[in-house]
């Protein structure tokens, strides 16, 4: 089929941040294809220099509203590693609990607010509020639960307050934890309904082999701690992240592209689920299987299924953490003090994938250098790759349908553009 099509989606909707899709097809061949990141650069790595170590998490959290807990956590881990701070078990548990809150919140937001409208063939959840109020209310209930987890532990989800270098500054009340546990247990009903709903959706068939990079840890499904791990079966310590990932700038994007040795790779829920499937909770594994994650899927559209499986996992694990906190008893603990200074790397699995923060801190506790690599920036290369490979299979469709399908593809990655505009250590494609 030889046709000419120009797609130009300015400010793609239902994603975080500003991006454009530009596709130019001449004679059935792709002449031009770009995912333009037009979000204004904000230069966090530049202006964090000169700030004190105990303000860093507060500032770096503001890289992104939707994955604020992740940025805060990666930032804290980097600072704590640079300064030799070892937090207590209780603090780590509380941080993990808040982290689960964020993952659930982010995935539910993506699935219910950004993705579902595509399957119902509407432009947003607004029309669904009247046609399918049950669906909308369920999504809102789940999202609220996720927000509550973060509120109880950290004050709020967007820019958490109590996560601080050396530990946490606030303890939830036992009564709050008990009430939260009850709500988490009750949420399985809504999750099962969500699962049913997503099972009824037809997932576009598109598959291309790729490298998945995530964290991996012995003993648990890695979100908050672990090493860097690739589906090409190698693993690296966090501090060696630069040996795995190289960044480059492209002239149409304020977000840098990243690549591993073998080129573009994918991070995020699907990468994690594929790499760490066995460590998912029981219900999460069942959900994943129910949604068709039986083999090792390379279909990026399966990212949504992986997200839903992870929501199950986080809810189950959150319940476990709460049980532990209650049975071990909450104690007021002082924040642990810094012991040294130097450079430190912190990595976590943000909802959209592995996230790196690295700082150099001087003897006065002042940051002198910083570097962050954001999940969406890592996915940009593979998204463009996928677009290139996906388009030929839908070329027979109308321009509108092509546009919608390509948008859905981009959206499946749940790109978070607002935070992907700050990256360091650039290598130029000359």
């Amino acid at each position, binding site marked *: 089929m030889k046709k000419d099509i120009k797609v130009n989606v300015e400010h793609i909707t*239902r994603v975080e941040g*500003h991006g454009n899709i530009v596709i130019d097809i001449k004679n059935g061949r792709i002449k031009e294809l770009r995912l333009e990141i037009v979000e*204004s650069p904000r230069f966090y790595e530049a202006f964090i220099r000169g700030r004190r170590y105990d303000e860093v998490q507060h500032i770096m959290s503001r890289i992104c509203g939707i994955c604020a807990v992740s940025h805060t956590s990666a930032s804290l881990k980097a600072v704590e590693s640079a300064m030799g701070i070892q937090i207590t078990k209780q603090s780590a548990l509380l941080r993990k609990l808040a982290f689960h809150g964020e993952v659930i919140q982010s995935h539910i937001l993506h699935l219910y607010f950004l993705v579902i409208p595509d399957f119902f063939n509407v432009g947003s959840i607004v029309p669904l509020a009247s046609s399918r109020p049950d669906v909308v209310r369920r999504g*809102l209930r789940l999202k609220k639960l996720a927000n509550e987890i973060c509120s109880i532990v950290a*004050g709020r989800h967007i820019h958490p307050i109590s996560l601080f270098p050396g530990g946490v*500054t606030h303890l939830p009340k036992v009564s709050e934890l008990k009430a939260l546990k009850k709500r988490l247990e009750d949420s399985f009903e809504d999750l099962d309904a969500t699962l049913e709903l997503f099972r009824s959706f037809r997932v576009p068939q598109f598959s291309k082999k790729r490298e998945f990079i995530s964290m991996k840890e012995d003993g648990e499904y890695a979100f908050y701690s672990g090493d860097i791990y690739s589906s090409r079966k190698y693993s690296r310590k966090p501090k060696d992240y630069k040996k795995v990932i190289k960044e480059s*700038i492209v002239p149409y994007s304020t977000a840098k592209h990243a690549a591993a040795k073998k080129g573009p790779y994918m991070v995020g829920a699907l990468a994690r689920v594929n790499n760490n499937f066995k460590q998912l909770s029981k219900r999460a594994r069942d959900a994943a299987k129910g949604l068709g994650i039986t083999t090792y899927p390379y279909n990026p559209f399966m990212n949504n299924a992986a997200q839903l499986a992870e929501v199950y996992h986080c809810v189950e694990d959150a319940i476990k953490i709460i049980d532990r906190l209650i049975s071990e008893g909450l104690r007021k603990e002082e924040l642990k003090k810094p012991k040294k200074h130097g450079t430190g790397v912190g990595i976590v699995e943000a909802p959209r994938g592995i996230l790196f923060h690295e700082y150099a801190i001087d003897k006065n506790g002042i940051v002198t250098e910083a570097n962050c690599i954001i999940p969406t920036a890592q996915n940009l290369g593979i998204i463009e790759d996928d677009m290139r490979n996906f388009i030929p299979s839908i070329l027979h469709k109308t321009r509108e349908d092509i546009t919608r399908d390509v948008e859905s593809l981009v959206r499946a990655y749940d790109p978070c553009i607002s*935070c992907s505009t700050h990256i360091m250590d650039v290598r130029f494609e000359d």
Partner: protein
Amino acid sequence: MTKNMPKPKVAFFSFTCCEGCQLQVLSCEDELVDILNLIEIVNFREAIDEKRDDYDIAFIEGSVSRQHEIEEVKKIREKANVVVALGACSSTGGLNCLKNKFPMEEVKKVVYGEKSKYYKYFDTIPARPLDAVIPVDYYLHGCPITKSEFLNVLKALLTGKRPDMPNYPVCVDCKMTGNICVFEKGKTCMGPVTRAGCDAICVTYGAVCWGCRGTVDNPNTESHEETLRIYGLTADDLVRSFDLYGGWNKYGGSK
């Protein structure tokens, strides 16, 4: 029995920021359905596909930090009857203004590397609050905004009331909440000069007030600097504290 009014059309726009304030709007889980009954959202890129230009009320999030953003916000101002600045970035410039104290070439180089100087694409202008570019009717302060303030402003606009904006410091919220003042614990705080309305949530959750809501109309900053000095802040610390969210006024900005 007020005059019958059609559903007001509301748009949300986002400029240089983390989009947390828009997300805070989406976090009104219990209220969202009611909100959709009261207003018609005609533009909200983060959540809906529709993009219309016939709005009455525009909520604008983010600082203005690129040349083309100036034109865009001006266009919005022309179309909207009411413009509300949504969050610290747009109300006071927010954290974004921290970059203003470094030269453009330097921040570009630090983030995008040596060769970035050949790429105009990364160029920005000093980040600034919305009212440095267009007149703003109402402000929702905070990084991020609070849900309750957003709902109050929305309700006020719908009833025809003038939205309240507290003009007293966070210490009031702190005392209402029943917090122990962090100065008692030997820490320091921006609360005494910062505009309240957040229920002192940062202090409640064990941190200090960072000053994200900007200052009250007549802050006693001299007194505050003196207090901070007495509590052991160095000259550098002082600069850092006042810079964090006060960068616009300090580095080049004025309204």
